[in-house]
């Protein structure tokens, strides 16, 4: 079970995203040709918990923040066949608020949770970014917090380069309603998070924008939980990019599988070559010697076995690469991926 951890301060939209994504992606996204990608919470009771947040959203109220960190188990499927199982950890934003203080317990708990994550998703709201662009201190603090968080992560995890990171900008509809250019905002974020997006990091970092609808507005200053009355919730997966973070995870898992299969194929090809060499050696032996001990049949069996394994590996690799390319096509549409600080058209995960 792969671990994917969602980090973000309070009100950055993690819980809303999980709830909306679980409802939207369980039906599946059509990647074309009747091939569907889906993310389904396979514990109905966890799904019921997520639905409680969605019910509030449908009624025009922002759901409550996460009281405790919660785990949700999802299957990522392609054509209803499993490509990965992930535990999504919705890390309590309030706990992170205290990481910058001298709360040692909070920091310890956080570093424990980092361990074993295969993908990191950092959430930040569009409202915080707009504030940061306007030099409002709170906005700047929220944005730089991601640097602090990842710096903590690098300190305690020597393999951090192998763990892809995605910056998920939530509430992207606010950019439209406040007339802020999205590309400018994205560029601003990339510049501010240079520790992640900079060169020589050997890291793969993605950035995307997600939204649950149109004109949903900010949480008002009086902390009212009501969504903007003129707003419209729209949970069709692709319309709000709800699928992108999950596809980023799927992409990573596919890449890992391809690397594994490539390794297995190489090994099997080597064994085939070894068996062929041994067969040639065996056939070169004199008939007299072979009369007393003949290994030809056994060697041919071994050769056939490794040839079949190699054939299966090739087929599996080809299927994986075809699906990988399909997912990459979708990922590229709505996410920018940086590898070692360079924005790539061809996405490659380590």
């Amino acid at each position: 079970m792969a671990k994917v951890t969602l980090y973000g301060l309070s009100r950055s939209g993690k819980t809303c995203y999980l709830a909306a994504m679980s409802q939207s992606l369980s039906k599946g996204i059509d990647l074309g040709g009747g091939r569907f990608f889906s993310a389904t919470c396979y514990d109905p009771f966890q799904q019921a918990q997520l639905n409680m947040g969605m019910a509030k959203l449908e009624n025009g109220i922002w759901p409550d923040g996460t009281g405790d960190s919660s785990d949700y188990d999802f299957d990522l499927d392609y054509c209803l066949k499993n490509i990965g199982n992930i535990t999504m950890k919705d890390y309590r934003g309030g706990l992170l608020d205290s990481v910058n203080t001298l709360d040692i317990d909070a920091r310890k708990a956080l570093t424990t949770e980092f361990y074993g994550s295969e993908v990191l998703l950092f959430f930040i709201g569009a409202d915080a970014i707009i504030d940061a662009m306007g030099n409002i201190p709170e906005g700047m603090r929220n944005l730089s917090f991601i640097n602090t968080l990842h710096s903590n992560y690098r300190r305690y995890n020597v393999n951090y380069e192998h763990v892809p990171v995605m910056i998920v900008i939530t509430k992207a509809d606010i950019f439209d309603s406040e007339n802020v250019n999205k590309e400018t905002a994205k560029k601003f974020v990339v510049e501010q998070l240079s520790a992640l997006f900079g060169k020589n990091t050997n890291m793969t970092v993605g950035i995307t924008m997600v939204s649950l609808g149109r004109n949903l507005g900010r949480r008002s200053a009086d902390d009212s939980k009501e969504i903007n009355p003129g707003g419209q919730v729209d949970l069709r997966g692709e319309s709000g990019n709800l699928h992108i973070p999950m596809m980023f995870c799927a992409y990573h898992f596919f890449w890992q599988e391809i690397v594994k299969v490539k390794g297995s194929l190489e090994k099997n090809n080597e064994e085939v070559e070894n068996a062929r060499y041994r067969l040639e050696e065996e056939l070169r032996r004199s008939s007299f010697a072979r009369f007393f001990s003949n290994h030809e049949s056994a060697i041919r069996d071994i050769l056939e076995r490794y040839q079949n394994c190699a054939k299966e590996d090739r087929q599996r690799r080809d299927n994986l690469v075809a699906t990988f390319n399909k997912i990459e096509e979708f990922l590229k549409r709505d996410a920018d991926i940086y590898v070692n600080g360079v924005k790539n058209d061809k996405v490659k995960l380590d």
Partner: protein
Amino acid sequence: MNIMMIGHARSGKTAFMAALYKYLGDSNSGYGVHAVDGQQRAKLQSMASDLSKGIYPKSTDVQSQYNFTFTIEGDEVMPFKWLDYRGGLLTSPNPTDLEKEEFVDALKYADALIVFLDGQKLSDSSNRWHGEYSLLVSCIHTAIRKKNEGIFPICFVVTKCDLDGDINHGLSYFTPYFKQIESADHVEAIVMRSVVDKVHYIDPFKALCYCIRRGFSSYEKRRKEALKDAENRLRIHKTRGVIDFLFNVVETMCEEVAEAFGGGWDTEFDLENMAENDIRKEKRKLELLETVKGDLDRKIHTWHELKWFEKY
């Protein structure tokens, strides 16, 4: 075979069961279902009788498991379990850990699902019920994940179709999921409308036929294994030649003496007879399965109102 009904509270699961038993319960002509447990049989007979008077059964208060046998002309074709869980469990605020564990385990061990979609809710054009629909998808997913052998059948039953409304509003939520099932090679599904009242009660039989037919392959496999086992036993214990026969006669006499003193064992003659009986029994079951398979296939294909999403 485990057939599990899932659906929300008041979606019509219990009425469906009552109609099933009304149409097929304890029937000795044609197809039938027999409840193995006497108490359950009495309860089902009472529900079926109430349905004849236009009285719908109360929703299931507790989760129930029924042990049935599917029969033809009174002969057992296949045993199966029918699982009915209280519809409010998924949306209740505080289900117990035991209830949750039992429900999830039942899903994992299900061999077929009957998914109830409330026709009234499907007719609602708002997004109000999307949360409930996502719960059903989650349940289906729990049932089909990690199932590696054979094809998993799902029967979507749209209930309360006699009431007015356009069910396509709600069905459109499931369209992408139906399309996924259509292109999958390990899952198949049908969608059927169901009306259950004192006059109409054949629909549950159609759903049962579909699920049972798809469960035949694994049951047939088990019967073939049992036949092979019986044939092996016969090979071991069969009397061959005069010496064998004489030895067995002596053994039988000794066994009778021992039995007189409260002892006794299965002699070679006994074991041979048991193996022969088992072979006859298994062959009869397999012949019956073959006959019923063909008949059910013909029936299922004549029910044109069933909408298919299946891969042949």
